[in-house]
């Protein structure tokens, strides 16, 4: 291509395009292939599917399986855990289908951990009244991802475009008619016309400085949809996982506490009893919804108070508290938490058998995402979204650990079936009709590759991550929130002055990182503005200075953020409430009182 020419575009066609090869995307692909084997399904991902971040999920995957458990109990835990911001029809559908999906994974080869009689074993998890977390040692996401990927290989109708970076959604007659992507291997702009598109691109915790997420978790799908006028919903709700390693933010699974690990401050005191989660439970006897098995939002907030009161440990990697597993003994740690032992040894030089692991809260999960209905359809016809990039209405204001892996299967299947139903009605549009738009888009990305401004990628990224930590972190203070919104707007301006060094078309990671940074900035903008607009405290969104209480009269509603020229436009959507009226959330002894008839 010579300067001034329209960029070359390779045109492909498929019935369904799925963007993202993690758990949700793979489950959707399998469901679509089973629903209609005639459909041509194209799974496109910026990494080989096995590298997707589902791989790093550790603790487990929810699904009612014990006789003394019930779907109602899982429903109640999820809805109260989400501080009543969950859509209850969605939660009902989810709890009804989680177990069958977990069993299907078993039939597909998932190596779930077992009881002595050979049946599925389950472990305790935060905010869950009864043990219902299926696990495969402490690498549950890894095994689910591998099982789904392996199973997808059985279906000849699933084609893959590995290491293709999706840059745009393509619209025609008011519907999503395909996607555009860069073939990373040679920089070729590729358009793929399709009758249905499923976004399954995962979360966006890389907008924060300290996070548990891999480098690829940059909110790409959220930004793609946002730019086409689709709302991002409940973006102010970002989960801080209470136990990440200081410095790196690497995840230490909640299962460490489910197995009986305890948290202590610099005085060696189990401080959670001072935060409405007590009384203190006996060492090594984890008790559901008490102490260390309280919900993640409460535990992360408790850390913040302890640190402020000077009771955190000072480590070379920053403030931390201790996660003590020593009383579990070497055999149990090796059987149930082998990866945790490895991680602690590798990254903080601690052998969990002999010493406590230093931990601190780190950004982990985006409860919000692309607004969808309960069938995973977005407001844009032909576009579906599923998994962490989507907001189907399941997690409300705080997700319970182990509900998100189950979500991938339950709603991944729904998305695949819905997309298959749409694609079965008729073929994709002729790719030639999308060509002119694809060329325009490609010209934009080419000028980014050639960008010669004075701003540095890493500088903008660092400033964004710091601003989000300051103004949209565990606690949100009014002045800082305003500053963060202003900072993101400033950075979006400076982003246009970016200068890149690498001009190559071959595996140009600087170019792709620049596109990712554009995505992160859009997502950060939506998060910061939604946080500012929600003038109450609920779940993971806490404004202790100006609005410390939950305000159901005004804010028992989902926030919707729409992209607009200057500042984004906010709107609200009612929460679906079917049978659980909002009440106070109680854990520890107070929760026990409440659950008695």
């Amino acid at each position, binding site marked *: 291509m010579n300067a001034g020419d329209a960029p070359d575009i390779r045109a492909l066609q498929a019935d369904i395009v799925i963007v993202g090869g993690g758990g949700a995307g793979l489950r959707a692909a399998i469901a679509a292939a089973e629903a209609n084997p005639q459909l041509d399904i194209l799974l496109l991902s910026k990494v080989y599917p096995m590298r997707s971040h589902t791989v790093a999920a550790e603790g487990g995957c929810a699904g009612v399986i014990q006789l003394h458990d019930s779907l109602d109990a899982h429903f109640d835990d999820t809805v109260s855990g989400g501080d009543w911001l969950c859509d209850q029809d969605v939660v009902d559908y989810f709890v009804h289908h989680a177990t069958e999906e977990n069993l299907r994974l078993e039939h597909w080869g998932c190596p779930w951990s077992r009881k002595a009689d050979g049946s599925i074993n389950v472990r305790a998890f935060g905010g869950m009244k009864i043990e219902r977390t299926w696990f495969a040692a402490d690498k549950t996401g890894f*095994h689910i991802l591998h099982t789904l990927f392996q199973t997808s290989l059985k279906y000849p109708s699933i084609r893959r475009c590995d290491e293709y970076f999706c840059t745009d959604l393509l619209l025609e007659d008011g519907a999503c008619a395909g996607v555009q992507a860069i073939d990373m291997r040679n920089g070729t702009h590729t358009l793929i016309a399709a009758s249905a598109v499923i976004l399954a691109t995962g979360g966006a915790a890389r907008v924060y400085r300290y996070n548990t997420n891999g480098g690829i978790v940059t909110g790409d799908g959220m930004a793609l949809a946002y730019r086409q006028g689709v709302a991002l919903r409940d973006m102010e709700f970002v989960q801080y996982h209470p136990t990440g390693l200081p410095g790196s933010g690497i995840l230490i699974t909640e299962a460490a506490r489910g197995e009986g690990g305890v948290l202590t401050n610099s005085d060696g005191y189990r401080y959670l009893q001072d935060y409405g989660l007590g009384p203190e439970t006996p060492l090594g006897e984890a008790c559901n919804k008490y102490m260390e098995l309280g919900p993640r939002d409460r535990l992360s907030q408790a850390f913040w108070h302890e640190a402020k009161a000077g009771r955190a440990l000072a480590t070379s990697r920053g403030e931390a508290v201790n996660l003590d597993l020593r009383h579990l003994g070497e055999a149990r740690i090796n059987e149930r938490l082998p990866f945790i032992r490895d991680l602690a040894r590798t990254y903080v030089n601690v052998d969990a058998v002999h010493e406590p692991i230093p931990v601190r809260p780190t950004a982990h999960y985006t409860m919000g995402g692309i607004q969808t209905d309960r069938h995973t359809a977005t407001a844009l016809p032909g576009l579906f979204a599923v998994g962490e990039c989507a907001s189907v209405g399941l997690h409300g204001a705080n997700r319970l650990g182990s509900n998100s892996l189950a979500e991938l299967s339950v709603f991944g299947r729904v998305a695949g079936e819905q997309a298959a139903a749409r694609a079965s009605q008729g073929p994709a549009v002729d790719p030639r009709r999308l060509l002119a738009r694809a060329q325009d888009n490609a010209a934009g990305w080419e000028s980014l590759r050639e960008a010669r401004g004075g701003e540095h990628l890493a500088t903008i990224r660092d400033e964004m991550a710091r601003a989000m930590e300051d103004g949209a972190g565990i606690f949100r203070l009014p002045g800082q929130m305003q500053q963060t919104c202003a900072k993101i707007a400033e950075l979006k301006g400076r982003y246009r002055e970016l200068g890149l060094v690498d001009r190559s078309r071959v595996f140009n990671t600087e170019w792709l990182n620049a596109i990712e940074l554009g995505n992160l900035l859009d997502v950060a903008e939506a998060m910061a503005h939604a946080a500012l607009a929600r003038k109450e405290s609920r779940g993971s969104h806490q404004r202790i200075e100006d609005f410390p209480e939950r305000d159901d009269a005004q804010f028992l509603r989902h926030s919707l953020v729409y992209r607009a020229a200057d500042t984004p436009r906010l709107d609200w959507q009612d929460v679906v409430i079917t049978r659980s009226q909002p009440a106070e959330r109680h854990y520890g002894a107070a929760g026990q009182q409440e659950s008695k008839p």
Partner: protein
Amino acid sequence: MLQVSIYRYNPETDQQPYMEDFEFDTQGRDLMVLDVLEQLKARDSSVTYRRSCREGVCGSDGVNINGKNGLACITPLSATVRKNKLVIRPLPGLPVVRDLVVDMSMFYAQYEKIQPFLQNNTPAPAIERLQTPEDRAKLDGLYECILCACCSSSCPSFWWNPDRFVGPAGLLQAYRFLADSRDTATDERLSRLDDPFSVFRCHGIQNCVNVCPKGLNPTRAIGHIRTMLLTRAT
């Protein structure tokens, strides 16, 4: 100052690959090799490699570090640096796309060839297929493979016959399904491997065992497959 030497090759601009030297100040910290790469990339953003989870579970950043394959994200400098030198090259034996990024298609093709999915010819029950903890434990040491290709790309037999020798990673996975009490396709699986190349090109050199970042032992798994093939033949 740590002397870092990185393999560079961009097919668009370079006639030949070359080694580029950097001076790197660790400030006394025992960083991971990936941290060094990330900081060098901040200096020269054209340095190209794959990475994601940065905790040794996604398998993206397999590279050759001071002559030995490993994951950059879980290899501390203290474990590899001798005489103040750190030499990072792409995984050997695979075509280089750019710098430290290799073309892994042949590696993945061998993995897919062994049909790495559970096969069971009985109807799926309404509940789980039972599996005792002892049977589940037979997958230990097999099912942790992250497909980083450190093993296969260190294997001389795979260098010679990447199209016909399944290689240590693929064979480890083949045995993972042979060892699974829920899989009933043992005979078909063995038949597909029963030729002079797929398994028998392994000469027990054990480079795979030496480099596996997850501490797995493909050679032992290959031995089990050989025994199964030979037992079946008699």
